């Protein structure tokens, strides 16, 4: 049997051990090659890009990648920086030297606490991560830094692309219809900021709805309908 299997060809749901193809193909994300065959390693939707097989997973841990924007919570303060929980298998570190306020002098513990305390939430960017060490973050950059207002929604990181949508179509609709600003972290943590908590709640509900129904068709329209219905009872911009 050479070529793609029905599973890959028809973009079906596959599970670990399912055969996707045999022959001169590449094993992409969430697949692996054994002998002449390529198998799925995770539950998800099979797809073919050129001659590369991939599986888009339905669920899974967040593995940091360079340049990812993430939302994290400070859980410890060290001598030269903060330990940040980015809801991944590895704790991240934000060195004091990677914050815009750092002036190159010796950081003393109590100075650090005045910038971020334990429990503070931040938007940061991943600047380094590999197999041998924990992820490194920076908050030098536009839009990065401490988060002091808004509401947080946490979904599985595999669903973030769905929340963003094709060319940003879903997230643009969400922002417009709920009147909120939405910042999605690649690690599945999403910040919603609105002028009143009712708007924020509706946006958060919409996000959880997208997570639950990510595998269905016509989702953008249904989410929009849900929002419009809920927004009827709200006075915007109080």
């Amino acid at each position, binding site marked *: 049997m050479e070529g793609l299997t029905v599973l890959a060809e028809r973009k079906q749901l596959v599970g670990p051990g399912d055969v996707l193809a045999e022959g001169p193909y590449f094993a992409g994300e969430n697949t692996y090659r054994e002998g002449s065959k390529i198998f799925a390693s995770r539950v998800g939707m099979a797809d073919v890009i050129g001659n590369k097989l991939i599986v*888009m997973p339905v669920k899974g841990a967040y593995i940091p990648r360079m340049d990812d924007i993430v939302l994290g919570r400070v859980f410890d303060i060290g001598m030269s920086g903060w330990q940040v929980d980015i809801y991944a298998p590895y704790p991240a570190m934000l060195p004091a030297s990677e914050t815009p306020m750092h002036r190159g002098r010796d950081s003393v513990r109590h100075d650090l606490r005045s910038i971020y305390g334990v429990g503070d939430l931040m938007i940061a960017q991943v600047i380094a991560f590999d197999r041998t060490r924990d992820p490194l973050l920076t908050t030098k950059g536009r839009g990065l830094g401490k988060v002091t207002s808004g509401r947080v929604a946490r979904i599985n990181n595999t669903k973030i692309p769905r929340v963003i949508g094709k060319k940003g179509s879903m997230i643009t609709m969400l922002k417009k219809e709920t009147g909120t600003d939405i910042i999605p972290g690649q690690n599945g943590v999403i910040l919603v900021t609105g002028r009143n908590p009712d708007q924020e709640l509706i946006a958060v509900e919409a996000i959880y709805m997208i997570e639950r129904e990510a595998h269905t068709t016509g989702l953008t329209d249904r989410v929009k309908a849900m929002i419009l219905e809920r927004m009827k009872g709200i006075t915007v911009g109080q």
Partner: protein
Amino acid sequence: MDGRRLDELRPIKLEVGILDKADGSAYIEHGRNKILAAVFGPREAHPKHIALADRAVVKCRYHMAPFSTDERKSPAPSRRELELSKVIRESLEPSIMSEYFPRSTIDIIIEVLQADAGTRCAGITAASLALADAGIPLRELVAACAAGKIDGKVVLDLSDIEDKKGDADLPVAYMPKSNAIGLLQMDGSMTEEELKQALDMAINACKTIYDMQRDALRRKYHIERDDSETEEVAEVKA
């Protein structure tokens, strides 16, 4: 003894993703066995010193609830539970692509809520699904079933009453794609012929169970095909 054919499985029911807080979970009813399996991970290694540099540490706990057996069982782990925790881990770990998550742990927890012989096999079947549900990359699923001997006849999937009266018990865990046996134990007395027969019987049953596992995943994660909304998703991932 319960009206089944010699090579007939007890009824099996599988359900995936029933717990909220676990990363992955599955519930199995196999005959009168009722077993819950959950997976946490990959997550930060605790304590740090057990972490491995090149792959994840897999931890497994097999435990029986006090009310699961005829006589109430003390909640403290017995020697049997500790032994089974080990052999179960050794049957599941080969399927886990743990090299993807160095310096982390993957925790597998199996709780027997009601026991009726064959709990370690049912536990493995559920735990394998829980691993897939957690989105952990696996080479394939692991299915398990026991065969045995009563009244001189080789028989599949003994129930508790049969096990107590029986002459031998042979639990087997099997990975169909690799044609590999990850768990094999035996106690009792069988001739070489009987043993080979029992082994084949168990392996065939595992293949059937494997199909049920894939079916359970399908029921949980059915995907409707939608090119328009998911095209963007593929690009982001690649």
